[in-house]
């Protein structure tokens, strides 16, 4: 069994481990630091001015009016349906069946978004975006951004371009968390196993050098701290033995910042209530190991855009109206802005560049069988 710790000392334990030795600085030849992901959300950068110069996308009641009229409903019919919008469960909400079929009047528009014409989602036109130079083209990459912190050019983050002018997805001011992804994450982490990141070096993480980065799913859910918002630091988690939940990336640490050195395929199983799986091709990661033991950074790569559409539209009007998300408009925008994984048959891009922010707190990670990870008192 192995135990990795966030406190900066390498550990490799046998079946019964001298657990406490980890925390009081024995010399070691290798070092690992582990974290549990406390927050995970779409990396949105919004200064409120340059990102969406044409303004943000309208609220639900406004795009419902436009789209219902376009579908042939009379003004009176639309206003009658929206009279008490949004209303509440248990009382008549006549607008619901109307907007659910606002494409062709009969089919569910969330399942069949092409039953209506492209509403034309306003997308980000600004210069900056968090993310990575995924296609390797640098500044020459079409539709690319400049990273606001590192000022790297050629950043590919078309998912941000799509969602960045939707009010509930704006990270305002930077590096603020966008409200809807934050809520989704808050719900998801209550029900799904925790996500773990372990950075390991053959030497010490205090010096620049090569590292490996393991991304795992735990067998248990996250434990919150007293604030109820962040994860409790220094909890112990056991990794799920299923190899599908294990990712190993190669990287390098420099000045306390870990970056991947080779693109990888990263698959993180999430929760159907939020997103079944995050499936990155050409994945990159950057993680700053902070002096206080926490870590902040981001992970990016190309993801199947249809999965992202599923995530955003699966609850239909329930997500749409409070979050100002026009699902069919998002469908068309994702499809139009997809920039990776071209279908060899049709040439249409199936992937979209994307980046997510990571906030993590120190944790101990034990491999399966971790129940023995205690120093057992002789008499018990």
């Amino acid at each position: 069994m192995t135990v990795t710790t966030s406190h900066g000392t390498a550990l490799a334990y046998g079946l019964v481990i001298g657990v406490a030795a980890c925390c009081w600085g024995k010399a070691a030849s290798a070092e690992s630091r582990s974290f549990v992901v406390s927050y995970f959300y779409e990396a949105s950068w919004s200064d409120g001015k340059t990102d969406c110069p044409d303004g943000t996308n309208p609220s639900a009641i406004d795009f419902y009016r436009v789209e219902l009229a376009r579908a042939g409903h009379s003004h009176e019919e639309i206003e009658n349906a929206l009279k008490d919008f949004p209303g509440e469960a248990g009382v008549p909400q006549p607008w619901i069946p109307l907007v659910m079929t606002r494409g062709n009047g009969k089919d569910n528009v969330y399942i069949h978004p092409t039953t209506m014409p492209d509403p034309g989602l306003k997308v980000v036109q600004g210069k900056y975006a968090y993310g990575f130079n995924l296609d390797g083209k640098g500044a020459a990459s079409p539709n690319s951004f400049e990273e606001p912190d590192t000022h790297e050019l050629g950043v590919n983050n078309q998912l941000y371009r799509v969602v960045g002018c939707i009010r509930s997805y704006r990270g305002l001011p930077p590096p603020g968390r966008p409200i809807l992804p934050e809520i989704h994450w808050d719900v998801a982490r209550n029900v799904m196993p925790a996500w773990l990141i372990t950075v390991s070096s053959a030497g010490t993480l205090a010096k620049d050098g090569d590292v490996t980065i393991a991304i795992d799913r735990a067998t248990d859910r996250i434990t919150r701290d007293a604030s109820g918002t962040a994860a409790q630091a220094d909890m112990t988690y056991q990794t799920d033995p299923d190899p599908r939940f294990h990712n190993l990336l190669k990287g390098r640490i420099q000045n306390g910042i870990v970056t991947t050195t080779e693109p990888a395929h990263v698959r993180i199983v999430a929760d159907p209530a939020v997103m079944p799986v995050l499936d990155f091709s050409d994945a990159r990661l950057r993680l700053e190991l902070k002096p206080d033991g926490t870590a902040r950074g981001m992970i990016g790569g190309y993801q199947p855009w249809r999965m992202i559409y599923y995530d955003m539209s699966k609850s239909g009007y329930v997500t749409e109206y409070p979050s100002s998300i026009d699902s069919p408009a998002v469908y068309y925008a994702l499809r139009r802005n997809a920039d990776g994984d071209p279908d060899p048959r049709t040439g249409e891009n199936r992937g979209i560049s994307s980046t997510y922010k990571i906030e993590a707190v120190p944790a101990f990670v034990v491999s399966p069988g971790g129940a023995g990870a205690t120093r057992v008192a002789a008499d018990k």
Partner: protein
Amino acid sequence: MNISVKLVKRRLLASAILLACWATPQASTRTAAAADLAAAAQTDGDIVIRRLNQEQYRRIIADVFGATITVGGRFEPEMRRDGLLSVGAGAVSVTASGMEDYDKIARGIASQVVSEPHRATLIPCVPKSATTADDACARQFLSAVGRLLYRRPLDDEELGSRVAIASSAAMQFKDFYAGLGTSLATLLVSPHFLFRDETAEPDPDHPGQFRLDGYSRASRLSFFLWNSAPDQALLASAGTGDIQTEKGWARQVDRMLASPRLKDGVRGFFEDMLGFDEFETLAKDAILFPKYSSKVALDAQEQALRTITDLLITRGGDYRDLFTTRKTFLTPFLASVYGIPLFDPDGGWRPYEFPDNDPRAGMLSQASFVALHAHPGRSSPTLRGKAIRQVILCQKVPDPPGNVNFTLVDDTKNPQYKTARERLTAHRSNPTCAGCHKIIDPIGLALEDFDSIGGFRTTENGVAIDTSGELDGMTFADAAGLGKAVHDDPAVPACVVTRTVSYGLGRALTKSDAEWTKVLQGDFAASGYRFPDLMRRIALSDAFYRVRPPQLGALPVGKAAFASDANTLGPIGSERGLP
């Protein structure tokens, strides 16, 4: 609430207050050993009427009705006196609002006991009709339950009045069980239940002197050893008089010491001695210490209690080793505070042993001590040192003068004084403060490696923490050294002996108790500081049951003080509702 119910409560309250203020009854001696005879003769032997604490109340309900009966509601706050809540319990009464709370709790319990899921197992008879009174069945139930709740049999008058209440209410509600529940609720708000009243009787072996009667002796024993009311066997022993015989008395004590319930008694004592009630109001700065939560507070107490019972009972260890032991128990949550990897799929308790080179050794380094005796946002060598003096060594440390300026000590970001040691050194330059700080800071500074919640650290504001210190001439380098110094301090076992006796008697010890406690201290040392042996020695000491002769003009003794509380209940008002 109608007038009659208010009247009932007022009278119950009056009875409770009367009892709480009631002067002491009488005395007797019974020797368990020759040494005790002389020692016991010196004791005051005051009886103290103690209010049940919350833990005792809950435990009794669980013992009598089972663990599935939930006890919900707010209990009267307790009062610490002479270092113990159990001493303060003899000086508290029941406030008017407290009585209302007891009433709500009682009705909640009663309604569960008579509810359909429970009645088959908790009520020993089936009424002839569920819609009317059945005095025989009510009597059978109330007699059995009343004996356990009052810790003695109900007399004819008491039982008769309870049956009458059950009957009256059953007819009014047209529901036998509602009537029974109503009557049960009145038992649960009776001073005879809420207060541990003890009764004296003439001592046949020592004419002119008095002793506790059998039931009072059983109660004193049971609350001391089990922190709960006597069980059926103990009450039976009291009923037959067996408990007043040398053999019967020893048999009961040995049975109780061999019972798993001894852990409850030991836990009750140490919870009291260590002041764990203060955790209820302990707050930490959530910004500085986001790991601290009510769950950590509960786990910290449980860690200490598990460490204590494991060492003292399971392993039969030396009491003094509590301050040096590296064996303890942890939950993953508590381990996160300590910065220790500990995985348990259920988040439960696991035995854990700190390695020899670990700074944590003994109870003083556990969160239950260092977090409890610290400020919300910073550690406190002063509070910790004072607690060791007062709680562990039974010494008195005066409170600081009212006009002390704490600005410097509180200024944890002071660029000149970066560590608590530096700040306290500067603070001690004030001669008013120097006297006390001189005896408490050198102890508490040894625990500076532990922050306000018990987390480990080696620096403060970037400066290495110096944990060296001194306890009455014994010097040490760190917390483990402090634990060893405390272990070797003869005041430590002497302190726990006096605290244990005081806890059992419910009063502060006086000069007249000195001889007896001296004997006990010697026996404790001779036993290798085995705590159960100390408890046995106290439980079998005649002095433990000695009561003072009645004083001229004293108020009525024992049950008489509560006489007719049931009779004053009056008619059951329709607004009282179902229990």
